[in-house]
């Protein structure tokens, strides 16, 4: 996996926010006032003032199910330089993970974010590992400053659907 620049992203990738099954979205260890929709939902995530923050300690466990099977191509995480996430592990198709068993399975992919990526550069993932994704679990293990609170301003996922590719939905992904 490489922290490539945005030019590596193919133009056919779609922002997967429309395929998220919001009824099943969960986030462990989030602070109640700063919750997951602040980082994930259209509109909220564009606002840099609205963050997802962790509560008891710096780790966050986010579970995102999708309404249909998708292929995941890349991931975009935006956060403040200090409290933004550093190590991010992704697990495909694992339901009901907890902080206890998060180390029991090898992640489908791991991303170490540089302060550069935190400004909003998409990170290309191992596409072959994410060919048949029904649900995604994002485990944010630590942050840059080492403080007890991790802040995330935006999380965006890019990829394609397996069954149908909605040609109208294909958008150009701008370089950041």
């Amino acid at each position: 996996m490489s922290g490539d620049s945005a030019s590596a992203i193919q133009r056919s990738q779609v922002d997967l926010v429309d395929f998220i099954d919001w009824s099943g979205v969960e986030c462990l260890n989030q602070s109640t006032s700063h919750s997951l929709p602040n980082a994930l939902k259209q509109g909220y995530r564009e606002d840099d003032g609205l963050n997802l923050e962790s509560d008891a300690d710096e780790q966050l466990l986010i579970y995102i199910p999708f309404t249909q099977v998708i292929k995941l191509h890349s991931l975009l995480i935006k956060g403040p330089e200090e409290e933004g996430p550093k190590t991010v592990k992704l697990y495909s198709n694992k339901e009901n993970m907890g902080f206890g068993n998060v180390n029991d399975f090898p992640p489908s992919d791991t991303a170490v974010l540089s302060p550069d990526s935190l400004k909003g550069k998409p990170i290309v993932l191992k596409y072959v590992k994410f060919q048949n994704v029904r649900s995604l679990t994002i485990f944010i293990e630590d942050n840059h400053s080492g403080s007890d609170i991790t802040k995330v301003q935006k999380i965006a996922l890019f990829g394609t659907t397996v069954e149908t590719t909605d040609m109208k939905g294909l958008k150009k992904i701008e370089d950041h």
Partner: protein
Amino acid sequence: MVLEATMICIDNSEWMRNGDYAPSRFQAQADAVNLICGAKTQSNPENTVGILTMAGKGVRVLVTPTSDLGKILACMHGLEIGGEMNLASGIQVAQLALKHRQNKKQQQRIIVFCGSPIKHEKKLIEMIGRKLKKNSVALDIINFGEQDDGKIEKLEALLAAVNNNDTSHIVHVPTGSSALSDVLINTPIFTGDGEGGSGFAAAAAAAAAGGLSGFDFGVDPNLDPELALALRVSMEEERARQEAAAKKATEEAAKQEKGEGQPSGTQDAMMTERANVATSEVDNKDDENALLQQALAMSMDDPDSGHETRDTDMSDAAADDPELALALQLSVQDGTKDSSSQSDLSKLLADQSFVSSILASLPGVDPNDPSVKNLLDSIQSQTEVRASNLSSQQKNEEKEPKEDEK
């Protein structure tokens, strides 16, 4: 109605032998556990409850979270008291048990009974609390029994570490008068975070108030809630009508003394009045039977309207015991639907000797009282008038009760 999986941690250490909570701390705890299990399963049928013991030889899970109330109650039998409570391990094992619950959609909750001193450090307790919060597990702490310095502090620290948006609570139960269960019923542990009391909690509270074995009307609200509700509603309606009857009767008395002879024509007034007439028969009547019949009578159209003005002094006696009064009216009213039997009744009333004998038996009435004599005279004259006006009054009656009942 939150979908929840609960693990209850019971303290069965040596300190539970103490009798400062009747009959013993352990027994009080067991009662509270039974109540909680019932409340949880009632508030949502898909809720599951599990139980573990913290003392004894070690932390032991008696039953994993299940919605089978019988299984839960059965495992409470034959528990032995002994050893020391291990709070940290208890909570951790409870968390593990909840993690492996079958329905992952359930919210996780742990209820801890803490009746003996806590041997752990405050830091360890706080760490456990934070871990619970991180995994979104709510915690209810019931502090009773031994109070040593630091115990309350540690428990409050635990609550502060766990509490996320007021989903966790702590209850301190002092030794003394009321049972552990009674104190708990009014707490958020039972009433479920401000949803308002569950039906079970309310019924349990009523049962506890009235003596543990008694349910109102001999019907278990849990077994047959509709019947219990119907009985309760009809009893309340009766009571309301009786109060209205007593009120109307006193109003009638006031009117009569002013010399107004207007027929008020209310059913209530009539019943009160008739009740006086048949007071002597009171002792022979079965109260339950009478109440039921009286309820029936109320719903039927009452054809007798002529007696409304006659209830002056007698109303006092009736007001003393309105239930009996109504019961009497009812017994008198059986078969008074026909005009023929009505005239029988009126004849009966017209028979002055009969009336005066009855009046003599009434506690508050003196037959020689001039006002009573006036009354009797009016009765006689009215009876004759009434017989002829019966049919027209019948129609009035049908209208008036409807107005009353509005």
